[in-house]
């Protein structure tokens, strides 16, 4: 009989096993999309709670990494300034076990005369890579004890700009727990003077925060006008949820200098827009900041 068959199908449908991550994925999505039962006043608090819970899950998730990190495998060599300064993969941590996967590539900069700078950057990269690996191992262990779940971490780097003057390296970390979150961090080096360029160091005074922020807000609204799929949490775009609106960049906001010598400000996934927007970047037109730049050496 048809009825019996349908009953059987329905039973199969209802008996589907529900992964443990579901609850986390749902709650995270709710938090990240800014809809929450908490009042508007507690939004900032809520965001930091969200961040904390993500960190916690991150730890839970970081599970198996293989035990013998490949040492100094030169996966990519990027020649810079007549092959003197190079970025290469210093260490790689991999785990490949059924539902647990990690791939962590630790970059290292070689060939700077300024060894203090070189060492401090490389040490930072190594510590971060090691931390990711150890966290993943701990999470994998927990994951195994509780019977599974898909956990993954993928971390690596990309050279954003490499010309005579500037080396910009971006390091990314993608955390997968059913869904994924992505983080990006940048370092920009002046290869000629061998110094690390910070955002404040580019400008005469602190006004850059407001000037750049205003420009980004304009760009957000314009992009949204041109394409309503491009959605940002900003005044000037009709908001559906109760997300905290973007006010201004932080003084140490993520940035790099692109090959055209333009300043690019970067925001992590969920920082200023819903998750589907991913990492978002804004190229700041140089004429907007030309009055406040210390010099035109880096930014053109």
């Amino acid at each position, binding site marked *: *009989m*048809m009825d019996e*068959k*349908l009953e*059987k*199908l*329905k039973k*199969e*449908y*209802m008996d*589907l096993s*529900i*992964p443990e*991550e*579901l*609850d986390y*994925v*749902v*709650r*995270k*999505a*709710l938090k*990240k*999309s*800014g*809809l*929450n*039962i908490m*009042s508007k006043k507690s939004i900032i608090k809520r965001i930091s709670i969200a961040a904390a819970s993500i960190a916690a899950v991150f730890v839970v998730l970081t599970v198996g990494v293989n035990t013998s990190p490949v040492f100094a495998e030169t996966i990519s060599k990027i020649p810079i300034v007549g092959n003197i300064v190079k970025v290469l993969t210093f260490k790689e941590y991999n785990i490949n076990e059924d539902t647990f996967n990690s791939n962590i590539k630790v970059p290292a900069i070689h060939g700077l005369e300024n060894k203090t700078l070189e060492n401090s950057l490389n040490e930072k990269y190594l510590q971060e890579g090691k931390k990711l690996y150890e966290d993943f191992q701990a999470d994998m262990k927990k994951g195994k004890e509780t019977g599974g779940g*898909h956990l993954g971490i993928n971390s690596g780097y990309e050279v954003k700009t490499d010309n005579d003057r500037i080396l910009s390296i971006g390091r990314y970390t993608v955390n997968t727990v*059913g*869904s994924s979150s992505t983080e990006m961090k940048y370092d920009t080096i002046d290869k000629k003077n061998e110094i690390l360029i910070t955002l404040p160091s580019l400008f005469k005074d602190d006004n850059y925060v407001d000037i750049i922020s205003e420009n980004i807000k304009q760009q957000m609204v314009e992009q949204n006008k041109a394409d309503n799929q491009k*959605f940002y949490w900003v005044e000037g775009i009709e908001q*559906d*949820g*109760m997300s905290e609106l973007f006010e201004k960049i932080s003084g140490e906001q993520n940035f790099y200098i692109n090959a055209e010598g333009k300043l690019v400000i970067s925001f992590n996934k969920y920082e200023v827009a*819903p*998750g*589907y927007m991913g990492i978002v970047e804004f190229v700041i037109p140089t004429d907007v900041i030309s009055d406040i730049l210390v010099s035109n050496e880096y930014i053109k």
Partner: protein
Amino acid sequence: MGEGSLAKQITDYIIKNKESHYRLAFSYVKNSDDALEVVQESIYKAISTMNTLKTPEYLQTWFYRIVINTAIDLLRKYKKIVVMDDETIARYDSGTVDHYEDIDLQKALDNLPIQYHSVIVLRFFEDLKIEEIAVILDENVNTIKTRLYKSLRMLRIQMND
């Protein structure tokens, strides 16, 4: 009613019914990772289009519609499906009884064209009314009735009843 209380209702609904949404998503994408992705994406979409929800009574049909569309979008991205119109599907329905004696039920259901799959899942597994299904799938009631009839017939044929 303020936006806050609607937001709260949506949040409560999403948390309470997460398993149903996961099952529904899974019935399309057939694996856990993708089903989770669909659930997550649906929440983002739902919240960014909260103002399209007229009244909380329609919460379920509204959200199911988002889940199904998100799942189909994902399948489309993977090029796992081609959405066919009803006439094209009708051509697949030869009207004769084929014999697939050992094919299992699940396979029979999985082999249905996507629109027919939707109707079966919503009507028989989720126990929704024809009218609600029509809203979810954005079709008129008669189309849904026809599809339901045809999908049962196709299942029966495949299952060699």
